[in-house]
């Protein structure tokens, strides 16, 4: 099953299928995984937080809605939102076409990244997590 999904190395993942990418300046980009976008199918709406909103790890910060279903977004890290991907408002399909690139959702300035990253999965662990969902 996990072979069908792209799981880039170097990113960190949540059980709920979000990813983060740690940028050089210490901020992180947050998005949803290839598995998540394929499960949701065609995304038509995204509900984003506002810049400045303080996210908490494992708490809901928005939602994505597809033709099939609506799904909450859980924050992988805690910290204020620095930037939101406003392009998604008009082009939510980027989440499907490029989940790890143009489909990024928010940029966060994490407060306790070193500590919180312990709660996240690396690519290999996330692959194992997907395998476990198959069973």
């Amino acid at each position: 099953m996990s072979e069908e999904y792209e799981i880039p190395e170097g990113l960190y993942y949540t059980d709920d299928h979000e990813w983060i990418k740690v940028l050089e300046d210490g901020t992180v980009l947050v998005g949803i995984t290839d598995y998540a976008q394929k499960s949701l199918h065609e995304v038509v709406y995204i509900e984003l937080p506002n810049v400045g909103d303080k996210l908490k790890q494992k708490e809901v910060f928005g939602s994505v809605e597809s033709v099939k279903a609506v799904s909450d977004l859980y924050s992988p890290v805690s910290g204020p939102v620095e930037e939101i991907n406003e392009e998604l408002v008009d082009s939510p399909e980027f989440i499907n076409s490029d989940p790890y690139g143009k489909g990024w959702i928010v940029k966060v300035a994490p407060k306790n990244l070193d500590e919180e990253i312990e709660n996240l999965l690396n690519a290999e662990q996330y692959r194992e997590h997907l395998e476990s969902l198959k069973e």
Partner: protein
Amino acid sequence: MPVWFEGVIPEHNAVRSAVGIFDTSHMGRLLVSGPDAEALLDRLVTNDISRLGPMEGLYTVTCNEHGGIKDDFIIYRLAEDQFFVVPNASNREKDLNWLLEHAKKSDVEVKDVSDDIAMMAIQGPKAEKTLQKIASEPLREIRRFKCKEMTLGKYKALVARTGYTGEDGFEAYLWDTPLSNPSKALDLWEEILSAGKEFGIKPCGLGARDSLRLEAGLSLYGNDIDEETNPFEARLGFVVKLKKRHAFVGREALARVNKEEAERLLVGIRMLDKGIPRHGYEIWKRDRKIGHVTSGGFSPTLNVGIALAYVAREHSELDTEVEIKIRERLAKGKIVKSHPFYDETQYGFKRVKT
């Protein structure tokens, strides 16, 4: 039929802008024949069967004694005393038993031929051009709700100008194609796909079938209509002929309902806020619950969430603003024309000269 082949939105758009093909063999197909066939059917359905000429069809509902809708379907008159009924898949057994029960005392044979006939729908403004390439008869001469026997490619089929998408199009019934040996149907499916290639034909799944019928404002049995709803509140009063020759099951109840004002009506809702209304969501107006969504989804044509919903009559006026409870929040929507939701000069069968 899968939920989608490529995706709900591209398949939906193919049908609105060009042509798509659906395998609809899950539906029921019943043959009702014999000298009493017309009278039997006319006593069970609300529409007037006697006005059907040979090779003509009509849309009707069949009701229980309380006027609740047992099913909705198209009936074709194939010959003077032979009719073809195409019920919803979920009601196939119920309808068959209902017909058999009422056929006992009359000279009628009721046969379930669902598993002996394959069925597919070719829908969209380019449906005629696509199908004409392999059809033995001029399709242009078949008016809406009429049908004709012909060959499609190598195979004998009944072709009707009907559908469930709001677009011009056809439903084809392929005789002698048992479920156990679908090779003729697969062959024809491929042939239609080749014929429609130049127009960008797409095979379509259940997802697009549902979004297309929703945009067209066509009811789905089990969602928008059922035995607890009557045709008047479902805005299907146009198929109830209270004064036709035969009395029919439910007529007294329906005559009574018709005189009173319905307490609730099926309306269309178009979202003003983001979010997709879905089956079962509550509808609110000024802190009062006024109804619920029976069918909802994303409209690819309008690029917004739309729904069919029952609301209290006093809130059913066009342009009334309402709130739809989408999970924990109330999202704004308004009541709009729903039959269809789209602009008929741009989309749907009326824009196509047939």
